[in-house]
């Protein structure tokens, strides 16, 4: 793994750029633990101060320090993406491995369901979900429902890897030595699909965070919990662009764009490393 | 065996259809700062005469496909021609298609030099009807109206005993044998001077194989074309090749008329290839050759076959034997025969 990362770093400019962008965003979010202000409180600093030495990224009309607010928001947003990615990886692994290994009608049935989940437009359903939940909407509930929809693209990818594994000799050997399906999948196949799982996890984070930002901007999430989308939501509520408080919007957008491009570049190069003939499109993208 | 059926044309009377002189083709990779050089073809000279089928034999990795790609001008990195000349009767003075100007190459391709590839499933565009492929490949060279071309096409297919309905088919609608026959038709429709055939029958079952070979041979005789036929299958060579060159690890080790080679193989490697052919009534156990073909990134010094050779002598590991004639038309590169007065 370390060797692979070293190779990627040396051979691919895209990987270097991606790594630097993601590292920067991670660093910024790690600083959240040192925030001098409680993240959810408002009017702790003078409002509407442009970027200066005292307030690097300026302050908001709600009296928050944009730098520290951004740091906490990035942490929460990344955590959200990671949770969605983790849960949906589990679903994608189960469906993908099972479908690819079993083949036949199991495969056809699972892939029909899979394609359905790829096609269904998720945003209206999430909006409906918020409409019903309103104030009880928590970020974990949102993460859960998004994980339930975010596995389908990647399950197909894992399935195709599993299909090629099935054709390999060691699978037959394991089968004849009396291993159960579950044992073969977990002990023999899982290690081979892990690289795909890692690369799709990054793409999945791009997807889920993009959707979360969108919902938050509309106010369809728990906007009192600082997130990137929540910051933009409050900036819009206070008409920050019209009022000339551009830093309130510009820094979150810059940070989240860096995060997206960084994660995407990592996923693309990791994918090219795993399988030079891979098609980037098969692992989805924003939305 | 048909070797005697060919009139023995004196090789100097007319220029040969193809002559390869001292060709060296290496795969050069520069990965992670380490330069690797694989000498896939290392100093091969041969000629293909007019109207003959010249067979090239050898196991996979011996460089025969690389040689074909050089002749066909299909050179992509990391493959690199580092030395030698390839001249055609219809295109000389450039030293190979890879050095000729694009207009010349375009003039020559398919009209004078065509190609039958291995694995007919993938050489035909799966989304294109065969008629369109014939038009793409041949029409620019033939000219005339489309109706004329269509008539010519029908005549050509009839000559090859193919139904004209193949033209309306997609490749997936044809059986493997039918696809390969269509490919032969495609490669011969412009009556080319030289046809390169790379394992043309490998993926086919035996009956179809025989039919396709007969078809190639028949149309070649009729048009008087030359064929450079590459296959590892000595049985195929025995069936159609007029002359035969044996390749081992990037070198040509023996060359003679097919009948001569089968009757009187000289090089130990050739002997091995021929003795491994099954024969009816022959119950003698086949003895395998020990060892594996050499790593061409770091080939053994001297004769490349010496680590596996039952006749290896001291000199074999020191210097490489030259290709020398032992009998008229029979050349071999082995110290066991007539090298510097030996044998």
């Amino acid at each position, binding site marked *: 793994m370390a060797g692979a990362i070293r190779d990627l770093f040396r051979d691919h400019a895209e990987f270097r750029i991606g790594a630097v962008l993601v590292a920067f965003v991670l660093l910024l979010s790690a600083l959240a633990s040192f925030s001098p202000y409680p993240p959810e409180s408002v009017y702790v600093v003078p409002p509407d101060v442009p970027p200066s030495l005292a307030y690097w990224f300026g302050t908001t009309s709600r009296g928050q320090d944009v730098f520290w607010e951004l740091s906490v928001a990035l942490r929460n947003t990344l955590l959200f993406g990671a949770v969605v990615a983790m849960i949906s990886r589990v679903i994608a692994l189960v469906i993908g491995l099972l479908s690819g290994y079993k083949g036949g009608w199991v495969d056809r049935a699972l892939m029909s369901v899979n*394609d359905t989940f790829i096609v*269904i437009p998720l945003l209206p359903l999430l909006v*409906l*979900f918020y409409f019903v939940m309103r104030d009880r909407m928590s970020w974990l509930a949102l993460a859960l429902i998004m994980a339930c929809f975010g596995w389908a693209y990647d399950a197909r990818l894992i399935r195709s890897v599993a299909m090629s594994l099935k054709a390999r000799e060691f699978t037959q050997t394991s089968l004849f030595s009396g291993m159960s399906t579950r044992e073969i999948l977990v002990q023999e196949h899982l290690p081979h699909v892990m690289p795909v799982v890692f690369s799709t996890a990054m793409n999945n984070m791009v997807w889920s965070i993009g959707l979360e930002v*969108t919902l938050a901007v509309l106010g369809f999430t728990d906007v009192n919990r600082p997130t990137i989308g929540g910051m933009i939501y409050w900036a819009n509520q206070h008409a920050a662009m019209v009022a000339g408080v551009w830093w309130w919007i510009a820094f979150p957008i810059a940070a989240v764009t860096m995060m997206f491009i960084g994660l995407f570049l990592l996923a693309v190069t990791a994918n090219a490393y795993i399988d030079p003939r891979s098609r*980037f499109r098969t692992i989805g993208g924003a939305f | 065996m048909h070797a005697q059926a060919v009139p023995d044309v004196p090789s100097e009377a007319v220029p040969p259809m193809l002559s390869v002189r001292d060709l060296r083709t290496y795969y050069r990779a520069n990965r992670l700062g380490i330069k690797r050089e694989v000498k896939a073809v290392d100093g091969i000279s041969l000629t293909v005469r007019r109207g003959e089928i010249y067979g090239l034999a050898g196991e996979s990795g011996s460089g025969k496909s690389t040689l074909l790609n050089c002749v066909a001008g299909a050179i992509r990195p990391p493959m690199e021609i580092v030395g030698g000349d390839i001249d055609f009767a219809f295109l000389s003075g450039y030293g190979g298609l890879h050095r000729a100007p694009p207009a010349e190459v375009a003039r020559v391709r398919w009209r004078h030099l065509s190609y039958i590839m291995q694995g007919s499933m993938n050489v035909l565009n799966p989304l294109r009807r065969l008629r369109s492929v014939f038009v793409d490949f041949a029409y620019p060279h033939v000219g005339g109206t489309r109706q004329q071309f269509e008539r010519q096409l029908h005549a050509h297919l009839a000559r090859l005993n193919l139904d004209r309905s193949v033209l309306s088919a997609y490749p997936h609608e044809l059986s493997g044998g039918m696809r390969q026959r269509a490919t032969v038709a495609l490669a011969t429709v412009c009556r080319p001077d030289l046809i390169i055939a790379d394992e043309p029958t490998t993926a*086919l*079952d035996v009956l179809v194989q025989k039919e396709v070979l007969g078809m190639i041979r028949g149309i070649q005789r009729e048009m008087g074309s030359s064929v450079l036929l590459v296959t590892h299958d000595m049985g195929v060579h025995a069936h159609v090749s007029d002359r035969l060159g044996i390749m081992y690890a990037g070198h040509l080790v023996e060359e003679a008329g097919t009948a001569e080679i089968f009757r009187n193989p000289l090089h130990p490697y050739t002997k091995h290839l021929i003795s491994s052919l099954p024969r009816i009534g022959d119950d003698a156990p086949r003895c395998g050759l020990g060892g594996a073909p050499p790593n061409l990134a770091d080939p053994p010094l001297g004769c490349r076959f010496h680590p596996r050779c039952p006749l290896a002598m001291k000199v074999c590991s020191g210097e490489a034997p030259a290709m020398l004639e032992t009998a008229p038309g029979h050349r071999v590169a082995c110290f066991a025969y007539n090298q510097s007065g030996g044998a």
Partner: protein
Amino acid sequence: MLRIASYEAADCGDPGSFLRHGGALMSGYFAFLLRRLGQFGLVLFIGINVAYVITHASPIDPVEQSISAVTSFGNTAPDAVEQMRSALRELYGLGATPLDQYRLFWSRILRADFGPSLSAFPTPVSTLIGRALPWTAGLLAVSTIIAWGLGNLLGGLAGYYQKSRTLRLMGVVAIGLHPIPYYILALLLLIVFGYLWPVLPIAGGSAMNLPQSLTMEFVASVLQHAILPALSLILIGVGSWFIGMRSLVSNIVTEDYVVYAELAGVRPWRILSSYVMRNAMAPQLTGLAMSLGGIFNGAVITEKVFGYPGLGSLLVDAVYAGDYGLVLGVTTISIVAVSAGVLAIDLLYPLLDPRVKVN
């Protein structure tokens, strides 16, 4: 996700029977048709059930929730409130058994009857949706076709001419644009064309003062208003099709049939068009079908940013107004519309790949 399976052709030695029987071809096509229709049905079934579960498994009484949201805007006559409440209770099926609720839910969706809208009481929800649908469909169709066509063309060229500097630069731009969420890009365009360089209308579907009729002026105004929303959809779309097509093409150029055509001296433009691009189109069409849901998500949010009078704006405003029937209506109609679009694209697939007909 690619449907190109390898079709192992049985090798029949008899030269007369090389063409597969015509009957098998036909039934192959019907099998394909049936599979696609089945998939369409499955998408509708699962999607609408998810909508049912979301609305009916929640611990909150959606009727009172909606009523309180509507009445919080101020003076609604008590009569109207009662009327709304009864309409909502009926829509939701309150008091009925769960089975009846479920049956009612489906029957309403099949009849496209979601009762009256609360926010535009008493206009029926279906009327509002019918008004908004053409805007979304038009915006989506035009921008998707442009993005798909342009992205595939440029991506195909970039995969074929890998040394071109211009095309490489385009690749960098595409990779940069592709992962940006629709909302962020739309917002950036809004900032650029709304505040920094205000040359384009940034809100609405047409100029306010124009009657909606087929006059030159109206059409011009519609087109002008569509530029920014379409542009934000196109910019992101082009990026993703570009990247997909480029990697497809750079694989296809090493395929035997392309190498063979090159060895045959087939003219480069013919190879590019009929051997390379053409063969990448089918997987890209499948890709389009598969990402239609995502593109629709993007359109929803883009419409909201630019105040475009389509389904997206309708949905978001309905949430703000607490209009349960409208939210449910837009959601379910979206699922129907997107899966119909996917079906339509899927049915085009055999035109691009004749192998589908052989199963």
